[in-house]
């Protein structure tokens, strides 16, 4: 296992069950997702079976088991965003990116995740792409956002 995972383990010398989620957080922050190898390593370190770890990790929306795309779209679908049309945005986004919620496209360019309330309901509906926020989003705004990303990617080829 890589050194970076070992450094995370070192922060939890007591190897307790309660360290599981913090360790998974730490690992995901470094690797971007939880791979089988990592889960195996955590299992050996904490003496918890891989099934248990997988069972815990899949319970929470935070953990991923594959990498996200270069552009990670997070669409807020909280109450305020929903009543401001986030549902329509989601459908449009799925069409534009050609992936469903929770998926990453084949090229690893886009991934889409629906989150609940980002915490700026007044500016609803809200989209975050790689920590850039787009507020009061409209269908047209969405289309041009995706178009500009695609164009940027094409020109950099």
């Amino acid at each position: 296992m890589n050194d970076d995972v070992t450094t995370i383990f070192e922060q939890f010398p007591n190897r307790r069950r309660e360290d599981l989620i913090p360790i998974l957080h730490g690992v995901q922050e470094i690797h971007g997702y939880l791979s089988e190898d990592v889960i195996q390593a955590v299992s050996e370190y904490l003496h918890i079976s891989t099934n248990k770890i997988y069972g815990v990790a899949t319970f929470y929306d935070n953990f991923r088991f594959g990498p996200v795309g270069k552009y990670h779209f997070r669409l807020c679908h909280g109450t305020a965003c929903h009543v401001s049309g986030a549902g329509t945005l989601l459908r449009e986004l799925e069409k534009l990116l050609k992936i469903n919620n929770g998926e990453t496209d084949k090229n690893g360019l886009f991934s889409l995740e629906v989150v609940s309330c980002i915490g700026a309901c007044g500016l609803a509906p809200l989209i975050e792409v790689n920590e850039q926020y787009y507020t009061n989003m409209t269908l047209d705004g969405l289309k041009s956002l995706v178009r500009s990303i695609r164009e940027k990617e094409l020109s950099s080829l």
Partner: protein
Amino acid sequence: MTFDTPTDSREFLIHKVLLDPKRDTEESLKKPLSYLSGERVHKPLIYVGMATCGKIAGAGKTYLAIRNYLDEHGVDADLTAGGCVGLCKEEPIVDIQLPGKARLSFSRVSAGKVQHLLDDILNDNLPEMPVIGQYKNPVLQNWEQVPYVDDHPFFVHQKRLLLEHCGIIDPVSVDSYIAKGGYWAFTDAISRYTPEQVCDIIDRSGLAGRGGGGFPAGAKWTAALNTASDQKFFVCNAVESDPGSYMNRAILESNPHRLIEAMLIGAYATGAGKAFVFIREEFTLAIRRLEEAIGQASAYGLIGHHIFDSGVNIDLVVKRGARAFVCGEETALNNSIEGRRAMPSSKPPYPAERGLWDKPTIVNNVETLFNVPLIIKNGANWFRSQGTEHSKGTKLFTLSGSIENYGTAEVPMGMTFRDIIYNVGGGMREGRTFKAIVLGINSGAYITGDNLDTAVDFEALKNIGASLGSGAFVVIDQHVCMVDLARFFTAFFKNESCGKCIPCREGTARMLEVMEKVTTRPADDKSFQTLERFKGVMHLKSLARVISETSLCSLGKSAPNAILNTLEHFKDEFDAHIFERKCAANVCTDLRVYTIDVDACTGCTACFTKCPVEAIIGSPRYPHFIVQEKCIGCGTCFDVCKFNAVIIK
């Protein structure tokens, strides 16, 4: 040099302030404290509201622009990333305080306006820019013709007990918090009161939990105190994952020391040696500030071993959640801290008797706890005198939706919902008509036009079948389809159900399927599908009743509320969807029926060629027709027709 700012603030604050019983009356402390708290400054002080919603509104860029300006012009000024005053609508908000002058608060300062703002203000000129107001201060020189912040319509109706420091002090400065009176209650508690007495004060204050249940905090603390155990835990529930509320996050970002103080008091009162803040993982800024604040408090000896020689040991740890709404339920939360799947367990036993690792554990909401230092400082009777007969104190709301002044507001218990919208909230946004308020996803009933005069009060809300909920306050207007909203809530519950018990796991899925049948149109509406739809709707109410009656935790119990509410208050909308298959708000796009206006149609064939299912017939230059049986309602023809001949019914 005058003793304006003590050279060793740590020494000063601990020994002259926190540990000195004379501090309350000592006049000589006032001046140094006002410098430490930032009320007075030696050089210009600039605050940028940098809580999450401010950042999303662009405060980060504003901050950078100010930093650059100061560097370029070689200005000697302090720049602070502050918290949130709650008026999110006016973000980015920049406050400026010049030596000797009252603090000014400017609204909507985008990065581009920074130059203009600073050019003027640093030369003592009031720039011509939208200003929220100035802060009243008797010892400083006030600005002429600038209104007071307190008189701003958003603030004037509020009662800001919990928010008193939010957006005003530097969130991660233990000095300014202590200088504002912070940690005084905690040092009082450990030096003057026994744990029993603290529990008793909280009990007599009538403080009720703000996490949704409204359970008396004092009773909970007393139960834990009275349960003998070698170990106890004190947990703050900062999960706040109700989509539509973020006031817990806002106050944590703006005043993390207040929570730490409250938890120290709570841990002392219940005999807990270890305290956890269980916080939603996405609140990265709040987590960062909280951890920084914990570091500062530890460095001052407020947390840890043998606090201020009192023999009290309290450890405080931040635990990040991993995203699951159900983590907010206290037993699920405890399971999550233990590193398990966050599935609720049946109560009894209650956590106060058997919680984390089977030890007595107090779980309290952030807002509940924010009240605690105030109560200790001002006494139980003072708190009892606030609010109404049944509900004491104030309540925080996250105002959003079609309300003019959106943001975080604190209102006294007893204020009516009408007043919140039309006074604090500044009324509906232009062109919007009020339809309902959704008080969080867990709350029992919507507030509709009929009961808009209900007061914010546990009893009053119970009488109309609602509950205070988490503090979300989403104002719904005429453009929202209530059937679609009910479907949305049902989908939320279905996704967030932990899956442990049958009624919630299967029932929410079935309810959602019914709601989807109601709000969409099947590709071909065969008779059995109509039958299924009717049958589903027919059983909806009894299904809802079983789910709310038999579910293990309140998530399942409240899952059917949205549907029941809609059936009760918006039955006609529901019926229109079921029988006429119409959505008046035009939200359920799937129900739309497309037809062609023969008079407007020029026969250009654009729609004919684009329809994906060949549902359009006609010859060039003659009006076209849509064969309804074939049409799937995709809307392509509507989009392509240049002559507005395709109409939606």
